């Protein structure tokens, strides 16, 4: 064994992020200026993005896969596109956090280190080609998030959030691990490529262990990406966690779960997908419908966004169920769009609040259109995009996913999907109603700190940009998944 067989360049983005996390952790000890840590994190994120881009451009065709660490992980188009999603999420969250942490008096340096570690875990999940790596990455990600959820130590709700997240997350990890064990028992390997070979060798024969193992794996992932009925933890955790953390994990953790699930189902177990496709379809319908219906009843914006993020997991799942190239490309595009619009929406939630006054109720948004027109306009863009109104990013995400579902013959699923987006329009519109059509209750003008304003502006830019010029990003997404189906 030698160093070159590890292919360190291929894993460079992940390494850069992890090293940055450690550097930030140590730098915190020797500096009093916490904002320095944030900018250090941003630097790391940008360098990691450049590294991803460099790997992407390093080969002539995009049909490549650079295995590393003896096929424990891989750098291919799929993982690199997901790196983009995770890095965007992380960068926007860091920008949104800087002044929020000061305001809430929880400005501890570990925050950025944990956030970066979680990002590293997410990126590893996107590139994992071994069930052990999947599990390892998931734990790096989850443990960092458990701590982040409880980061506001003085706040009981934050503590509750962390504990709930930890207990249910550990429970889910148990399912996942048991599933992995059963799959190992059935196939004799945890490596995805070896599993593919094994399944080719056995032909149509499917062991009971494999079947149950995959089922348990699905349950584990369902917990992680909050599919109904495994979603019960989500609203409390999202509501209790500091808002900047909620923004980060509602997008990042979900995207990471879908990343690993997508590779597992479409690359390793395409034959078994048939056995589970109806179960997944039921999960998707339940998730969309319950998420949206419950969100209708919310008056707390943060909680409403929590339920809406459950519903969005349902939409994205449709793309996986379609199990074709269009569907998976749609999933990737949707995740990128979702990163911009959802983190953006949470950033606005941060901006509207003040210290000790979270200002999370709908009525706190009354008259925002006249109190702070730019902020309200940004929120309106995010809400319309989440509702799937053209020509914004969210619309094209849904367009691709639903069209893939129709292509794969799941017309009913597509119909339920579009009907759900109509239902969801109602509660997204309600925020806009409050902002523009109600008289302000308080006259206070939310103060926008420059980094937060930058985060919101970038998110708006992304949401509109992906809507007006979806082609380059969709092409990118289509090229990225070629590996998944090429094998």
């Amino acid at each position: 064994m030698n160093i070159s067989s590890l292919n360190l360049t291929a894993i460079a983005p992940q390494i850069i992020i992890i090293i940055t996390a450690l550097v930030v952790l140590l730098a915190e000890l020797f500096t009093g200026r916490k904002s320095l840590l944030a900018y250090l994190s941003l630097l790391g994120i940008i360098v990691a993005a450049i590294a991803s881009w460099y790997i992407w451009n390093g080969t002539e065709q995009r049909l490549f896969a650079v295995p590393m660490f003896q096929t424990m992980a891989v750098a291919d188009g799929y993982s690199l596109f997901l790196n983009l999603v995770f890095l965007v999420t992380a960068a926007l969250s860091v920008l949104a956090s800087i002044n929020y942490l000061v305001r809430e008096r929880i400005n501890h340096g570990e925050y950025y280190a944990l956030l970066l570690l979680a990002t590293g875990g997410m990126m590893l999940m996107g590139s994992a080609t071994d069930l052990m790596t999947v599990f390892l990455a998931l734990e790096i990600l989850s443990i960092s998030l458990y701590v982040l959820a409880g980061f506001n130590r003085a706040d009981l709700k934050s503590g509750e959030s962390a504990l709930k997240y930890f207990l249910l997350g550990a429970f889910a990890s148990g399912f996942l691990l048991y599933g992995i064990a059963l799959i190992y028992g059935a196939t004799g390997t945890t490596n995805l490529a070896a599993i593919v070979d094994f399944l080719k060798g056995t032909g149509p024969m499917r062991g009971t262990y494999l079947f149950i193992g995959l089922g348990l794996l699905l349950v584990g992932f369902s917990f992680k990406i909050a599919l109904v009925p495994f979603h019960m933890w989500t609203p409390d955790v999202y509501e209790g966690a500091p808002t900047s953390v909620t923004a980060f994990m509602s997008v990042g953790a979900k995207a990471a779960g879908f990343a690993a699930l997508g590779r597992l189902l479409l690359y390793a177990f395409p034959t078994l997908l048939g056995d589970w496709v109806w179960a997944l379809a039921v999960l998707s319908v339940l998730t969309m419908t319950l998420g949206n219906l419950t969100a209708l009843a919310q008056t707390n914006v943060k909680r409403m966004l929590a339920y809406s993020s459950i519903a969005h997991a349902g939409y994205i799942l449709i793309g996986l169920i379609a199990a074709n190239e269009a569907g998976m490309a749609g999933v990737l595009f949707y995740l990128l769009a979702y990163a911009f619009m959802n983190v953006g929406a949470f950033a606005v939630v941060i901006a509207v609040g003040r210290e000790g006054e979270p200002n999370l109720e709908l009525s706190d948004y009354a008259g925002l259109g006249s109190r702070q027109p730019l902020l309200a306009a940004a929120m309106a863009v995010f809400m319309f995009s989440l509702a799937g109104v053209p020509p914004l990013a969210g619309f094209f995400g849904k367009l691709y996913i639903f069209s893939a579902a129709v292509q794969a013959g799941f017309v009913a699923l597509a119909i339920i999907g579009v009907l759900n987006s109509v239902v969801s329009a109602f509660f997204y519109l309600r925020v806009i109603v409050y902002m523009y059509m109600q008289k302000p209750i308080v006259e206070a003008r939310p103060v926008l700190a420059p980094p937060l304003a930058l985060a919101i502006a970038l998110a708006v830019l992304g949401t509109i940009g992906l809507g007006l010029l979806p082609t380059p990003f969709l092409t990118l997404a289509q090229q990225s998944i070629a590996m998944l189906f090429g094998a």
Partner: protein
Amino acid sequence: MNQLGFPLLSLIIFLPLCGAVVTLFLRKEAVIKWWALIVTVANFFLSLPLYFYFQSGTAEMQFVERIPWMLSLGVSYHLGIDGISLFLVLLTTFLIPVAVLSSWTYITEKVKEYMILMLLMETSMVGVFAALDLILFYVFWEATLIPMYFLIGIWGGERRIYAAVKFFLYTLAGSALMLVAIFVLYFMNAQATGRPTFDLLELQKFSVPLAAQTWLFLAFALGFAIKVPLFPFHTWLPDAHVEAPTAGSVILAGVLLKMGAYGFIRFCLPLFPAAFAYFVPLMSILAIIGIIYGSLVAFSQSDVKSLVAYSSVAHLGFVVLGIFALNAQGLSGGILQMVNHGLSTGALFLLVGMLYERRHTRLIDEFGGLWKQLPLFGIFLLIVTLSSIGLPGLNGFIGEFTILVGTFQANWIYAALAATGIVLGAWYMLTMLRRVMHGPLDKPANRQLQDLSAREIVVLVPVVIFIFLIGLFPNLFFGKMESSVDTLLSQTRATISMGEPNP
């Protein structure tokens, strides 16, 4: 073909958008108003070459622009107009400056946002009528919702929020299924021909299997029927109209409702001809119910604006009836009646708005004898009312008469029933006119009213000119649409006769 060799349609679509972006940076209210007016008037003049360079002898799409947009999916930025959409584009570019000018003093709050939304409205509406790609069409179609939602919700009346949300959700629900139907159509075509495309002209060549036609037609028709609105999907309309600000009502009645009827002609008819023929009885009966029901409800209204709103339901019933007559007279009458309704109902909303600005009420009982106080206003109201009830020599007559001729050829019972609608229309409109304008001027508040200002006359005169122009020289309009309508119908008939008449 593009006879100009120049992307005129894109220019018409995106000039208002650019105007809206510039408006963002303007500060003074007066400057903003003038700027919006200049942009929209300029856009109207920019759209006039569409009429003059339009070639009547061909059914081909004209002023075509085509750029690939999402290549891998087969979505293209494909614009073009024919005799069917020409007048709807012109109607849009004509009504927007009128609407802008009519809100000069009516809108006092958030003028900047208001004008930006008006300009965005124009962009998306022209886009709907010019788009020849299903996805592009859908994008513009949905994009019209956002500005209208804000126009109603921010500058509307008492129950504006309820009306705005209802408007948004109804229309969104209607078009949601259309999106799925578009996908189904796309993949059917891709499987059959191997060329994935959302291009309308390509998809028209593909004959959809009969069994699928029914479902696809219904999915498309639901979206269009809600927009028109066809009975029983009309309940959002009175709310939206009554609560919307004057200019909002003008645009809603003048252009937005036409998008539904236009959708039937442009998409349902050529794409699903057999299903279209199959559903003629159902749709015609719904249209007739709409005509009679709308008229009766209009008569019982105490608010002038909701009276006009319900009269819209009746008038649009005529349009749908004409379209589903499936012959040249019915179809071209339907198209012309769309323009007529845009003009006369638009003008009615303008007049009601002017009255409301003066008296801050729209209850018919609050008025009476206004003729003595407001003679100029009275003259305009008289002309517009007569146009709306179809007096020969004015535009409404031409449209309704042609539709009835077409319907009579198709089914005389439908024509007879629809004709009662004309009588009812005359009845409620004239009653309204009598109660508002005639009789003694016995309300003291009415004695203070000022007659129309110069600006208001400038708003109304162009509309009235067109009311007369269409009434006296209908062939200026029919001539341009003739070959498009004939070709559409002959293609449809050929397809229907090839397959079985009933799916």
